[in-house]
């Protein structure tokens, strides 16, 4: 599904290398987690993959089902099936959440040559999915993320994910700022979306989320690279001992 090979990325504005030869493969149907200390480049990875400005790829490649992501505009990546659940979802004053969702869904359908959803069809789907995530009709009406609590913002990201049905979901610290109940709602939402032809890359600081969303593989990232990969136990190890030993091991 997602193949990242020897990816080197620097900031456009300053001469600072963030990713230094990152290699990673997420096969179809698998959930991979990335953990790592602050400043290891986790968020940069998610932004570079989704096409945000401000980064320069100096070496390496990233492909989604064989197509080179790095040559595409952000909207083309989305239409190709990539989705990023933002760490800090952006507020858009005056634009109703529903309008935003429907515009996004239909923009992608259009880009893929599919028929757009009518208002009626869309409403039916969105209501059901919103109910699953305990998102109230009022929240659907309110402007995108404006005045939403931390938990509401994250649930809203998962609702977008559920509506857009991407092939490759990247979740950037979706668990940050969530209480126990919200964490369960978000995890249930994600687990419901797991399928043999959909993959997840879950970026997190804590093992807690991974006890709800069982990963197939856990990667430890430090200094712009994956320094160790392993099974779910690796996350428990980090939780217990911190990153010290792993970092020392990697030199």
């Amino acid at each position, binding site marked *: 599904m997602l193949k990242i090979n020897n990816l080197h990325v620097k900031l456009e504005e300053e001469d600072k290398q963030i990713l230094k030869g990152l290699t990673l493969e997420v096969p179809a149907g698998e959930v991979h987690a990335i953990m790592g200390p602050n400043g290891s480049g986790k968020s940069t990875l998610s932004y570079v993959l*989704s*096409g*945000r*400005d401000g980064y320069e790829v100096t070496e390496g490649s990233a492909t989604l089902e064989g197509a080179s992501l790095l040559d595409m*505009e*952000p*909207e083309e*990546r*989305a*239409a190709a099936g990539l*989705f*990023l659940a*933002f760490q800090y*979802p*952006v*507020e*858009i*004053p*005056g*634009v*109703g959440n*529903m*309008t*935003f969702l*429907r*515009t*996004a*869904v*239909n*923009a*992608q359908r*259009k*880009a893929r040559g599919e028929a757009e959803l009518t*208002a009626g069809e*869309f*409403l039916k789907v969105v209501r059901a999915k919103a109910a699953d995530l305990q998102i109230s*009709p*009022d929240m*659907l*009406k309110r*402007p995108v993320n404006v005045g939403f609590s931390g938990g509401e913002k994250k649930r809203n990201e998962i609702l*977008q994910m559920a509506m*857009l049905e991407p092939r490759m979901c990247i979740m950037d610290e979706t668990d940050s700022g969530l209480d126990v109940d919200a964490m369960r709602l978000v995890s249930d939402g994600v687990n419901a979306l797991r399928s043999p032809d959909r993959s997840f890359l879950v970026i997190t600081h804590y093992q807690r989320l991974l006890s709800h969303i069982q990963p197939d593989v856990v990667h430890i990232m430090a200094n712009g690279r994956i320094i160790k990969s392993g099974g779910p136990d690796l996350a428990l190890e980090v939780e217990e001992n911190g990153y010290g030993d792993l970092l020392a091991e990697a030199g």
Partner: protein
Amino acid sequence: MTDITDLEVREGVDRETVETVQNMGSYKYGWNTEIEMDYAPKGVNEDIVRLISKKNDEPEWMTEWRLEAYRRWVTMTEPKWAMLNYPEIDYQDQYYYARPASMTEKPKSLDEVDPKLLATYEKLGIPLREQMILAGVEGAEDAPAEGRRVAVDAVFDSVSLGTTFKDELAKAGVIFCSISEAIREHPELVKRYLGSVVPQSDNYFATLNSAVFSDGSFVYIPPGVKCPMELSTYFRINAENTGQFERTLIIADKGSHVSYLEGCTAPKRDTNQLHAAVVELVILEDAEIKYSTVQNWFPGDEDGKGGIYNFVTKRADCRGDRAKVMWTQVETGSAITWKYPSCILRGNESQGEFYSIAIANNHQQADTGTKMIHLGKNTRSRIVSKGISAGHAQNTYRGLVTMHPRATNSRNYTQCDSLLIGDKCGAHTVPYIEVKNTSSRVEHEATTSKVDDDQLFYCRSRGMDEEEAVALVVNGFCREVLQALPMEFAMEAQALVAISLEGSVG
């Protein structure tokens, strides 16, 4: 379930925007109608003023009124205080009267009007047949509550082609006709109110208009009547080198209510054309006028060539207690816009509202705002202005709020937001506030922001292209004002917002 219904409706509106963005072209009203025209000789002088008066079959008093204005005008100088830059206008190098030859014999009804002219309005999407309009779908028989009929006055260059729904309006006692017809048929009303809100001597452009205005709309709503449908005027400038000087007079008698819409377009021309209109609203005790404008005159091309010079004086006089007026404007067109729809809050407890979206792209310049003149006690006003600048455009909000010594316990709230797209445009805010009593309160809030890269990236990461993302964010910025518009107009306005910003990103 109400909330969901509302949701669906709003959905429809936003949908429209997005589709329009996707089919974005350039100015889509820029075509021209090939038709034989009668012109008055170029330039303006007393003979031309008399000629215009004669063409309209006006009585002597009207001719004199015009001449008085003309004599005044020649002593005046063009105001230069606005933040607008344009070459000197040669007032003698314009036609002041242009009439389709087929309109020489006044048609008795729209059925007798040249089909070519009617086709022009059809092409513009203006319904001149008397039928239901339901969110753009024509001919709905059992229209639900939001399905409305709109009566139209079609003004083509210097003349009104005719108005629709005349009989039905007459049954309700409503007079809706061209101003030239009103001067002939209802001289007592015209004499009483014309120039009573915007005097002949008001300002350079209004005075010129008083001398040479050719047509426009007249509305009278009798006491206690709620106008049974929305009224509208659609202005089209077609002839080259011709100014359009229309005059609109609306009188809402005691306890009456009317919603009036106005739309404007013009063909693409390399030369600049002059448009100097005057709109007067008279609102008596407990009456209410809601006046909405979508101004989409040709703005000029990307290099700033051509476009309409739009100098407009609009003023409402709340003469009676508890009178209420609401101006809503969406200004997307014109090379130059000079326009300050104002409210004189004379009656006690009268209310004035001004909602504005002004978009300037490419080389457009807009200097627009409002005046709220509080004279009566317990009067209230509200100003919500959203200015959007893109390209090389300059956009100025200029507003005056004044509280007279007598206007005790009055209130004003002003919110003035500017949005910048790109780094070569400008936004300016020039508020004037005068408070001459101690019990009134004036609030002014202003913000200036840029279209946020994070917002655009967020939209794009969800699959929208850049233009679509900008249109969505800008429509969100304008939401408060768009919601103040009648439904059909809101849809048109949203679409226009998107089109006007074409090419402003990337």
